[in-house]
Every structure is written in C-alpha cells, then in structure tokens.
C-alpha cells in the first residue's frame, strides 16, 4: 500500500543541514502535510521526494506497479516521464509552471501532448473539460494566462497538472500569496478534486489551517529533521514536541 517512501535522506547546503536523516512513507490515496517554519527544510524535502533535488545520501522509493523502487534507478528520462504523467507538481507561484505566452488551452494541452496525446480535437475537448473542473469559463480557452488573476492562474495550473490523471501530486504552498477569499476557493477546489480523483498528495505548507483542512497525516519539521508526526488532528490538538506546541500556539484564532 506504500506508494512513496523516503529513507534516511540527508542533504547539506554549505553549513546548513537541510535534511538530516529524514524518513517517511506515503500510502496510496493519502494526503500528507509537511509543516514547519521557513528554513525548516520542508521545501527541500518536497524537492527530494519529487526527484527535483538529489539527496546527498538516502533514497526515495516509488511503487509504480512493481513494488518500491529507488527513483534514482529510473534514469533522467524515466524520471521525467514519471513527472510528466503519473506525478504532478503544483508550485506556489503558477508563473513557474505555466507558459504565459501560450493560451490557457495550450497550457493544458502541452502536458497532455508531453504524456503522448496527439489528437487535436480530443486535446481541446479535454482542456475545455478541465477548465470547467477548476471553475474557469471554457470560453476563455484561447485567452492568455497573463490576463488571468492570481487565483485563476493557480486554478489553471491545477488543471494543467491534473489533466494527465496523476496518482501522486506534490504541492508547494498552493495557496500562499493569494487573498484569503481566493484561498478558500482554491482549498475547496483542491479538497474536492483530491477526494474525487483518489490522489495521493504531499503538501508543504506553513499554514496549519490548510493542513487541518486537507491532510490525513502531518509531519512537523524543524532544522532539517522531523520532530513529530501523526494524525493531523491529533498532532494539532495534542502536540507533544516543544516546537509543535509553539507552532500551534502561535496562530491567531479567527
């Protein structure tokens, strides 16, 4: 049932120990949040799990159907193929993922074509369908994302990621930098799509409200290490580690 596993990951940037003996595993259909302050190593961990950064030592393993295999053995091409189809990655800033000079439909279609689709009519229909799924008027299929609001761009990135039907999606602060009202809409959208599609998700966030809303399970990172982990509501309502207690008690009640 384990889909992704990290074993004793180690990563150093100069004198900074970004990952220090980090191990975790993710089950199919499970939503795992990684929380911690800036510099805790949570983004480095996401980067290592998704194959974007190679750890100094340790391994990331993925079960693509034949049991857990180290992703380092897939080779560059194999890894890229995985990242383009069965995995997805949602950036905090959609401009990092989208091509602003390509239409909304084109942005969605590109990922489909990278995954092997060729029939233009089908690609366009699928793109329109996904625009609708993320609550963008399909009539805007030929518009350029540079004319979209921040929230719309984020929704377009989500559509362009999910169009290939990935089973595992990495999310890096998907609602960071958005207005709260826009945040609520994106969160609601993610929550529904994730459940409907049965996705496994690794979500990095510094917002424990987001973690509570979306995640089944939580790991808390500090200075490159996991200091606490468990069921989301258990860790947040009964935090044991000093740092988790600080994190939970630092939130202003709404």
């Amino acid at each position, binding site marked *: 049932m384990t889909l992704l596993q990290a074993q004793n990951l180690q990563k150093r940037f100069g004198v900074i120990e970004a990952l220090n003996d980090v191990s975790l595993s993710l089950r199919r259909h499970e939503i795992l949040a990684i929380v911690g302050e800036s510099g805790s190593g949570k983004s480095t961990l996401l980067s290592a799990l998704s194959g974007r950064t190679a750890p100094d030592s340790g391994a990331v393993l993925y079960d693509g159907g034949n049991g857990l295999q180290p992703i380092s053995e897939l080779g560059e091409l194999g890894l890229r193929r995985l990242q383009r189809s069965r995995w997805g990655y949602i950036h905090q800033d959609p401009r990092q993922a989208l091509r602003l000079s390509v239409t909304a439909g084109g942005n969605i279609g590109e990922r489909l074509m990278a995954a092997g689709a060729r029939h233009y009519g089908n690609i366009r229909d699928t793109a329109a369908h996904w625009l609708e799924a993320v609550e963008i008027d399909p009539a805007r299929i030929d518009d350029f994302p540079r004319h979209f609001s921040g929230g719309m761009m984020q929704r377009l990135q989500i559509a362009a990621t999910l169009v290939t039907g990935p089973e595992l999606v990495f999310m890096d602060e998907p609602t960071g930098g958005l207005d709260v009202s826009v945040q*609520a809409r994106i*969160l609601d959208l993610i929550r529904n799509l994730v459940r409907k599609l049965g996705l496994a998700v690794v979500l990095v966030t510094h917002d424990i409200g987001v973690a509570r809303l979306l995640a*089944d399970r939580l790991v808390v990172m500090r200075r490159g290490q996991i200091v606490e982990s*468990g069921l989301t509501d258990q860790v947040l309502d*009964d935090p044991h580690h000093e740092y988790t*207690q600080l994190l939970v*008690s630092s939130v202003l009640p709404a």
Partner: protein
Amino acid sequence: MIALQASNLQKAFTLHLQNGTCLPVLQNAGITARAGECIALTGPSGAGKSTLLRALYGNYLVDSGSIAVRHRGAMVDIAKAAPEQVLSLRRETLGYVSQFLRAMPRVSALDIVAAPLLERGEDQASAREKAAAMLARLRVSPRLHNLPPVTFSGGEQQRVNLARAFVCDWPVLLLDEPTASLDPANRDTVIALMNDSKSRGAALIGIFHDKFVRDAAADVELRLEPLKEDA
C-alpha cells in the same frame, strides 16, 4: 456485547512553553461501554471528562493504557493503531459530536452533513437526501441547507454538527455537550435520536451537563475526580 473497553489510561500534558510544567489528567482511568447503553461522564470541571472522550476518539494520545474498540467484528486498540486504522475506525465505527462545528468556507450545511455518508461510499443523491431529512428533523430551515454554516447562530451550528453525527448509524458515538446551546424542542429531539441509536445497538458515551438529558438518556454514570497536583 462490549463495544468499547478502555483500561489503565494515563495521560499527562507536558507544557514545554510553560517551563515544562506537567499536568497529569488521567490516571488508571477506564471505561466499558456495551452495545445499546449510554454512559454519562460526570465530575467537576477539570476532572478529565473531555480528555477521556478525546482519547477514546484518538484525538489525544494517551501515555499508556489500551482502548479496545469493536471494529469490523474484531477489537482494535486505538491507542496503538496506525493512523490509517484510526481513520478507518472513524469512518465506520466511531462517531464524535464536538461542542463546536468546524465550519469550512464554501461548504454548505447539507454537504457537511452528507460528508460522512459519502466517505462510507454512499452515492451523492441518497447521502444528500438523508442529510436533508436529518437537518429537517433538527429543525434547520430548508433555506439554510445550501448555505455554508459559517454565519449561522451557535444553536444552528450545533444542530448541523448533530445532524452530521446522527445521519450515520455509528456503533459507538461519543458526545461532548451535545445539547449545550439548544432550545427544549431540539433538546428533546436529540434525546430521541440518542434513544433511537441505543435501540439499534449503539454504545453512547457523553458529557451532558444538563441533568434532564442525563436522566432521559443515560443508563450509567461514570464519575471522574480531578487528580492531586503531585499525584
């Protein structure tokens, strides 16, 4: 038939931000709940009633002891169960009514109530139908069903919370002050719902400050006393 049996529970809170102060709350606590029975947790404020209830749900982690819950025909120890097992227990076996509704932006009252049915695999239409019927039974006006309860009154929110709990047939249902902000008519409805659950074989464990509710629904009282500071 025993539905839940907890024994030798120890729970202390270590407050790292208050110089590591240690607050012991449960010591050798235990409870046995049988199918068709309602247990009222009583005792003064600070005696650990809510802590015990939350521990039974796996929301608080006990330091030691066991909490065996009958789940899919076998006893599972929620104090030692893996997260996915706890989630499976909460999906099928263990219901929980908190004091306050955690309303989500943009999610309607109807969808909040239907959610536990959908998680059990029911189809949307029948889940919504049951949710609407339960909301109606708790006198939540139909014009509110499609609105997110963020702006509802305290009593309306609590009724949404109750509808969410009673829409499913839980084998074990935990209730934390379910009638605190209800008028007499709705309180009577909750008592009727609790008694319905008991007659279909559910075990109920709750904190009911309202003596009227205790007398009308509880079969057994379990009294907790605050621990001595140096215990």
